[in-house]
């Protein structure tokens, strides 16, 4: 859902909240120049993390805005020739919602299904591409089940067919190496608060060679290459830049540590509980996002029982809805299993003690709830739950 600010990021940001408060677009005085220098440095830091040129980075208010700009902006610019978009069924809500908005403008959208592992089937993508396809949008790492899509292969396929490729990399940037050129990525969304940076800032990478054009969503003074008007929040941009620079530095160490803690969490839970399903491919994934389903346990009760720990069923942006996660539905999870799924997030500041505490609490509560569950009793007796004819009273 989010990450805390790395203290070093806060250190970088603070001067730009107080003394260095100038508007980076003020051309005529030192307040503006000093802030502009800082914003441009931050831009270069973001670019370096993903292998881009600083001129290709546009600061936004977050990955939601970046996704909106990428999808609606590209589609509307090329609308005279291209009326079709392709995305996957497991995308973030803002991508799916942007596609839905475009459908009401007369575009056609293909929502590709995914395999039970959560990975996209490249053959289905290939056959979905049409001569009038403007954009393919597939996220790098899924926020609910942590699955990592084969973006290099998707990018190569799109490049060979002359279609722009956008990826929502909010959950991937800073946690694994990404190179926009090696992966043939044309547009990419970045979120500040997913990599120990501040909330309220993100970026969109927009390729310059070959040039990707888009119709801006926000009209105004033409800042950010005309793509996103509005004063760039210098202290937030500085924070994003610092977070990206630190992420590059700490990536190898964090990745090994998170992988180890994630393995510890899964192994300990699975060794103490039966009928636990790990959702999503575990080979092609970000280990810090673990999604487990506990059979015969009611999901909301489990979440309430685990109140001490910040967990979620489904992602933060959909946690208020009563329907089970559409991502789990897309990977073919049974509806009752989808209801009792929990997402565990492990990051740079997660300690081993916290993992052990969570495991113990989770095991205890699942056992307690299973004791109370009549379904569990039937499963223990060997009854196939699917064969039950439920009656209405």
């Amino acid at each position, binding site marked *: 859902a989010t990450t805390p600010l790395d203290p070093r990021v806060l250190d970088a940001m603070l001067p730009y909240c107080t003394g260095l408060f100038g508007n980076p677009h003020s051309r005529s005085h030192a307040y503006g120049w000093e802030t502009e220098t800082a914003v441009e440095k931050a831009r270069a830091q973001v670019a370096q993390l993903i292998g881009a040129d600083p001129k290709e980075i546009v600061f936004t208010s977050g990955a939601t805005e970046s996704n909106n700009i990428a999808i609606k902006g590209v589609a509307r*610019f090329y609308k005279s020739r291209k009326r079709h978009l392709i995305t996957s069924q497991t995308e973030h809500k803002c991508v799916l919602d942007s596609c839905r908005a475009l459908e009401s403008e007369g575009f056609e959208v293909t929502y590709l299904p995914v395999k039970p592992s959560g990975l996209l089937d490249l053959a289905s993508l290939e056959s979905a591409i049409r001569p009038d396809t403007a954009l393919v949008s597939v996220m790098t790492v899924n926020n609910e089940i942590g699955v990592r899509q084969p973006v290099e292969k998707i990018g190569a396929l799109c490049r060979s067919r002359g279609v722009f490729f956008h990826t929502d990399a909010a959950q991937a940037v800073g946690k694994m190496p990404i190179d926009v050129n090696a992966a043939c990525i044309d547009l990419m969304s970045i979120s500040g608060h997913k990599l120990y940076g501040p909330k309220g800032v993100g970026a969109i990478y927009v390729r310059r060679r070959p040039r990707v*054009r888009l119709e801006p969503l926000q009209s105004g003074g*033409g800042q950010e*290459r005309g793509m996103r008007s509005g004063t760039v929040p210098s202290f937030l941009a500085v924070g994003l830049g610092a977070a990206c620079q630190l992420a590059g530095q700490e990536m190898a160490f964090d990745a090994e540590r998170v992988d180890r803690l994630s393995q510890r969490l899964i192994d300990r839970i699975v060794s103490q509980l039966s009928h636990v399903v790990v959702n999503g491919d575990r080979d092609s994934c970000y280990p810090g996002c673990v999604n487990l389903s506990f059979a015969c346990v009611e999901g909301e009760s489990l979440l309430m029982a685990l109140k001490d720990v910040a967990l979620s069923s489904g992602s933060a942006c959909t946690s208020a809805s009563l329907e089970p996660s559409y991502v789990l539905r897309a990977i073919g999870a049974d509806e009752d299993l989808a209801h009792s799924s929990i997402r565990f997030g492990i990051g740079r500041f997660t300690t081993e003690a916290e993992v052990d505490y969570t495991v113990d609490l989770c095991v205890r509560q699942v056992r307690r709830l299973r004791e109370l569950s009549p379904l569990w009793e039937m499963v223990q007796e060997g009854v196939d739950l699917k064969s039950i004819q439920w009656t209405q009273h």
Partner: protein
Amino acid sequence: LPRLLLPAAAPSGCFCNSHRALVRRPVAAATAAAYSSSSTAAADAPAGPPVSVTVIDKSGKEHQVSGQSGENLLRLLQRYELPVEGACEASLACCTCHVYVDAPDSADLSSVTEAEEDMLDMAPFLRENSRLSCQIVLAAGLDGMRVTLPQATRNFYVDGHVPKPH
């Protein structure tokens, strides 16, 4: 006696414009050819074959203009007093001479450089066939080209005012 002081001829054709203001002679298509020799724009090459261009302004009205091969499109449009701005005077530092060309992939059209693309990025109402008119040099093969003016430039004034060329 006040002497009528004419400004010195400057290479970008502004002599031509201020001369026009003093003489108060409206520019008609027939006299445009006479002006081309007095306009000493560095981009204008003398005596190339004529190239006719149709310009559609933002109200949809068509204007026929005629230039010479080697002439700069922006300067041609300005000679005919069409409402095209050129804030940076054709030095590739703004996007106010933004136009839409009907055949953007024509071989006779000079291909877009990265610097022009960078300036175009900032133009409002950008389309796939957008170009900066100051970067288009007329060639014989462009005869009959149709060029459309966008609704507004980055300098747009809501009262409809269009800045005069410099």
